Each structure stands twice: as C-alpha cells, then as structure tokens.
C-alpha cells in the first residue's frame, strides 16, 4: 500500500475507532487503512485528544477505601512481557500482510465461487454476527449484488474494484450500511485482494447468489 488512499473511513467510523466503540472486526479493517493513511491517523489522534479531554473533565468518583493500597500491592507483580511483533510476511507475492493482521492465524485461501477465494479470519473478541475475512477476486469477476443487514467495511490491499460509488485501489476503504446495495466488480489487471468486516448477514440478490449463500457462509 504505497499510494495515498483516496477513499477513507467516514469521520464517524474514525471517531468510533478512536473511542474504542467499533466492533473488533471493523476496528481491524480501520487499523489496516491507518497503516497507509496519515490523514486518517491525524483524525484518530484528534479524537484521542478529545477522549483525553473528556476523561479529564469527568467528576472524581469515590474509589473503594483500599483501592490505592491494593494497587500498590500489585505494582511488583511480574507483568506479562508483550510478545515480540511477529515478522512481516506476504499475503500474496508483493502484497504484504497488514501489520494489524500479523498476530492472527491466516489459513489458506479457500475456493468460494468461480474467480473468488476467501480466508475466514478468527478475530479475538469478535461479537456474534460479526465476521472478518480476506477476499481474493480474479480480475473482471463480478461479485453477486448484495445488501447488508449491518455495516460492512472493506479495505483494499491490492488490485482494485469498482462499483457505482467509484473505483477503490490499495489502501482505500469502502463502507456500506444497511441502506446500500452494491455489485462490486474486480478491475482488470491483478487480482483484487481485500479485507472485509461485516455485521449481520448479507442480503444476496438473485437466485444463484441466494442458493450458494448458505454454502459459502456469508
């Protein structure tokens, strides 16, 4: 992701990320975007500063009587050493795995439909109904038109896709909510690899898509 992204998460999504209010899977997608987007890192940092200011103006609650004594007693507990960051690796030739995903098990690509492969990701702390996966779509492949019961957020890692809202390249983020339907098409050239988080089930349009939906588990 060397290019500067052109499509960003909404301000609301950045704010919820900074406030710790995004679902775990969606936060991962935002984190992948932030790796290549100084503008959004600035947005997140601004929201963290606001968080610090809001925290500072909280009224002082009464702590338990022994709160400080207990805290002091625990200061010498050995802290679990943070594991060294896992080494960088590639998701595909020339496509580095985002740092945000390096701690996760990333199994092999699985065939999902003609021209479409998928890796389901197991996100620690993901709520029921939340899913995160990597999708690899062959150039020119059209995804079934679909809508969403919840919010979907996608970060492109390589290649590009287009839908009625525009063309999305590496580092770009596309967000869809329950009001939207879209039919993304992977552009010509290299396969489009993206990281996607969804809430709720997709609403597939068309008989074929609805027939394969239970099989592919989206």
């Amino acid at each position, binding site marked *: 992701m060397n290019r500067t992204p*052109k*499509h*960003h*998460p*909404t*301000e*609301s999504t950045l*704010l*919820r990320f*900074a*406030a*710790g*209010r995004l679902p*775990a899977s969606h936060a*991962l997608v*935002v*984190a992948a975007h*932030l790796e290549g987007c*100084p*503008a959004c*890192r*600035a*947005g*997140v*940092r*601004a*929201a*963290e*500063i*606001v*968080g*610090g*200011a*809001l*925290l*500072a103006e*909280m*009224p*002082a*609650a*009464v*702590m338990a009587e022994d*709160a*400080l004594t*207990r805290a*002091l007693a*625990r*200061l010498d*507990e050995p802290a679990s050493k*943070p*594991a060294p960051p896992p080494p960088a690796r590639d998701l595909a030739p020339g496509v580095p795995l985002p*740092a945000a995903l390096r*701690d996760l098990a990333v199994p092999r690509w699985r065939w999902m439909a003609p021209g479409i492969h998928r890796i389901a990701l197991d996100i*620690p*702390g993901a709520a029921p109904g939340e899913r995160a996966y990597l999708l690899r779509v062959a150039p020119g492949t059209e995804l079934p038109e679909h809508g969403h019961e919840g919010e979907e957020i996608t970060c492109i890692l390589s290649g590009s896709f287009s839908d*009625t*809202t525009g063309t999305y390249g590496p580092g770009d983020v596309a*967000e869809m*909510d329950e009001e*939207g339907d879209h039919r993304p098409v992977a552009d010509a050239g290299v396969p489009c690899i993206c990281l996607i988080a969804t809430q709720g089930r997709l609403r597939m349009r068309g008989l074929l898509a609805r027939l394969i939906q239970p099989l592919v588990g989206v």
Partner: protein
Amino acid sequence: MNEYASPPAACRAGLAGAEALDGMTPDDIAPPASPDDASLVLAIATRRDRAAFVALFSRTAPRLRSWFMRTGLAADRAEDLAQETMLAVWRKADTFDPNRASAATWIFTIARNQRIDALRRAGRPLPDADDPSLAPAEPVAPDAAYDVAQAEQRVRAALLDLPAEQAEVVRLAYFEDRPHGEIERSLGIPLGTVKSRLRLAMGRLRARLLDRDAPDRPMQDQSRVGGRP
C-alpha cells in the same frame, strides 16, 4: 513532597532518596502540590517512582472510575478497570513519549484499550499480547516543527469552540456503542444530520491538530456510505 514542583528538573536529576519511599502506605503521602501528569509518568518510567504513582493514582483513578461507569459499566467493573488501567500505566510508563502525545491522551488510549480488552475477554479468551488494532496512532506529523503540547491545546480549544450541537454528537460517540442510532433516538434528529454534524466537527478538530485553516476535508475524499449517487 515538592520534588515535582519543577517537573523537568526533577526528571533529569532524579529524586534523591526516592528508594526510601518504597513500602510506604497511602497515608504516608501528602497530596502533591501541583505535579503535572507527564512528569509523574516519566518519573515512573525512569525510576519506578511509587510516590509519583500515588500522586497520579489519586488524581486519575477516580476520574477513570467515572469514565468507565459513563461508558455503561457497573460500579464494581468500573472500579476494577480503573485499577487495571492504573497498573497498565505503571507497567507501560516507558512507552510514554511526550513528543508524541500528552499524558492525558496517552492515559485515555490505555483506558480505552483496557475496556475493549475486558469486554472482549468476557466473550472469548484473548491473547495477552496487545491487540495491534488497538495500538495508538502513529505520530501525526513527525517533523521537528510539530509541537505536541501546542497541537493538543489547539484541539482542546477547538472542542470548546464547536457549536453546541456538534460538540454534543462528538461527546456521545464516546459513550454509545451505536452512536448513529442512539444519537438519532436520544436527540430526535435525523441520521443524516447526525452524520453531517460529526463530519464537520471532526474536520475542524483534525484541521486544528494539523494547524490548518481548512475546516473540512473535501466531500469527494469521503467514501460514501450506502445508497447510490
């Protein structure tokens, strides 16, 4: 205890006799005069300074408890998380870099991550390692001219200057899991209005962080949410 009266000097020089404070009880320590949070965190980082921890705890833990309750946690849970956050401050103090963030911002990110961790742990086991998706944002403008204290002060001033209706939706976003839906319901304003207020507010705050006058990012930079053109 006025060693913290002149924080930078105290940090450089080290506190003579700080070791003697080990093993003290809370009652042994008078409330600090006016130490600043950053110098307390630095004292913890450089000397494992328990007096500094006590001073920081007395001031910060009660606000953390309020914060966690305000985010919807029960009182005992909020108390526990205030404790855990302060312990994390003690353990991670050496990662605090005053050239990247103020102590207030840094402590906020720790509190936020503690809450996320606790909620995720409640549902499923979570590895001990820090979740990379929770890592604090990288430096915003790592050039020499960037003054963190000034930049943060501009953002805080901008927050106070926001029109009331924009400040309201920003604040609520920290305390509601589904800000759009919740805000729409609790304020009785249309979703589109909530979104545009948030966008304007965030645009201003970000611009002030970067010391730009432009109050907003151009519309075409926004990825669209849902719907068709």
